[in-house]
């Protein structure tokens, strides 16, 4: 019989450890602690916000973001520099990540699917960003590392407001 009362982040399971890691990532992003967020990544990792809801070949498609290690570093520098007026005055965000499912497990890597609701508040306006997340997490001797994060916004093909923060 399926036990429906398993704690969401049971550290004795790979899924549980991945969920803890994903929550930690969410907290860093809401705090805009981008330096610490950058340290979560494996060198070969990709941060991806696709436009096309169906694409899996992100390299061959135009995305909102397709960041390898170099682009992530540049993005973090941009956010930290104080010279980007959209980042310096970016929205305050609160996000919840939930509805976790272990999609794949391959050696030291797990792929976890989840749902994210993010409320962004700026100058009297609160905007909701809803999306499905895919995290690929690699468990290494130095702890878990992010290998891929894909954020599929429900309205990715619509016009978005310019963002000064990370999803």
């Amino acid at each position, binding site marked *: 019989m399926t036990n429906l009362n398993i704690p969401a982040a049971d550290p004795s399971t790979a899924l549980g450890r991945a969920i803890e890691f994903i929550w930690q990532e969410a907290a860093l992003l809401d705090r805009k602690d981008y330096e610490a967020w950058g340290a979560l990544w494996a060198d070969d990792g990709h941060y991806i*916000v696709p*436009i*096309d809801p169906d694409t899996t070949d992100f*390299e*061959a*498609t*135009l*995305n*909102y*973001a*397709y960041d390898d290690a170099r*682009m992530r570093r*540049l*993005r973090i*520098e*941009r956010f930290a*520099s104080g*010279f*980007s*007026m*959209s*980042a310096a*005055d970016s929205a305050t965000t609160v996000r919840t990540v939930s509805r976790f499912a272990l999609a794949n497990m391959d050696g030291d890597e797990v792929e976890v699917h989840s749902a994210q609701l993010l409320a962004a508040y700026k100058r009297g306006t609160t905007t909701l960003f809803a999306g499905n997340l895919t995290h690929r997490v690699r468990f290494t001797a130095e702890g878990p590392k992010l290998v891929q994060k894909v954020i599929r916004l429900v309205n990715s*093909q*619509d*016009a*978005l*407001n*310019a*963002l*000064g923060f990370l999803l």
Partner: protein
Amino acid sequence: MNAPLRFHPRTPDSSYADLVQDAVVDPALYTDPQIFDVEMDKIFTKTWVWVAHVSELPKPGDFRSTFVGRNPVIVVRDRQNNIHVLENRCRHRGATVCEKTKGNTTGFTCPYHSWSYGLDGKLRGLPYADGYEDVIEKSDLPLKALKVGVYAGMIFASYNEEIEPLEDFLGNAKHWIDLFMKQGAGFPIKTQGEHKFSFKGNWKIQLENTTDGYHFPVVHKTFLQSVDAETSEMLSFMTDEASITRSLGNGHSVMVMVPEHVDLDVDDGTEQLQERFAHVIEALSKDYPPEQVRRIVRSLHGAGFNLNLFPNVAMSMSFFRVLRPVAVDETEIRHVALGMDGGPEIANRERMRIHEHFQGPFGFGSPDDAEAWERVQAGARAGRDVPILVNRGLNREWQDQNGDKVSHSTDETGMREAYAMWKRMMSK
């Protein structure tokens, strides 16, 4: 026939022209909803408005839905390869007949009472037709069609039956459109995806921006820091006297940012290809001769200029920037990425990565632009007694033999051209 099929909509009055005087603009142009309504009537339904690029509709039945001003329209290619721009509005009760952004179809059917239309807009069928015997003729009720003009693959539409030919309207801009298309490096230009975002501001704030070189190093400081020194050098037009802005008539203007990339077919061989494209050069060199490799790599950033076509499309570096006025204080922008149709995949992918770097809601450029524009919109509400200035460079503007006004790329010659056209159209 009994029922009137035509009626006369209201006529806007014509008292708005005084709000633009030479090089100063009344801030009400950004904030007054009534002015916005009149602009939609006097500008967006009277002139040529860009609606699509031919590469978006390669096959019969291909369509994309878009807007002319606030009016929803469908751009569609029929079986005879003719391009139609049709109002997305059933002739019966006004429902949209297409809710998809793009696709391929055999026709359009209204979901409300199943009136169906062909790719050319003709009314093909309506159910239970006996109620319409002696009431209407089907041939009287096609989807309303706009005039269509195509130049260099750019599809424009107009509600104005009396409008001048598209080529006359484009005038001196045609030369620059031709130059822009040379970024295909011998291949036709194709669209390869787009970023869409909206900002809380008036459409003219974005119209002004395309040929505003003055803002670039200020607003885009973090972008310039994030590109390598070679790209940064390429964009060092602030102090380059060869970097100019030029009025082109009918509200159009061009700003040259990289003078050596104005005509990408001209290559004296002295330009060092950028080190960051070494992997592209290596891959292309297996399939292409060295001259063609140079041509493709020199074109990766697009043309060396921004061309602004009044009122709604810019051809900027390596993309189309299309604006859609939504409300007096809301504008939607599409950044359409361009590539080489049939060109090498690795180069087209590199162009997408360059596009992602700067454009769209997550880019290193667009969010900062949008922040500046929203600040303009917010500040413009401070009052009408302090005008918006578009007078930079009046002291050094000169007139070319062809009538174009020319000044430095950081000067506001392009905005003055756009507002002169605005004034002319709003005076009619």
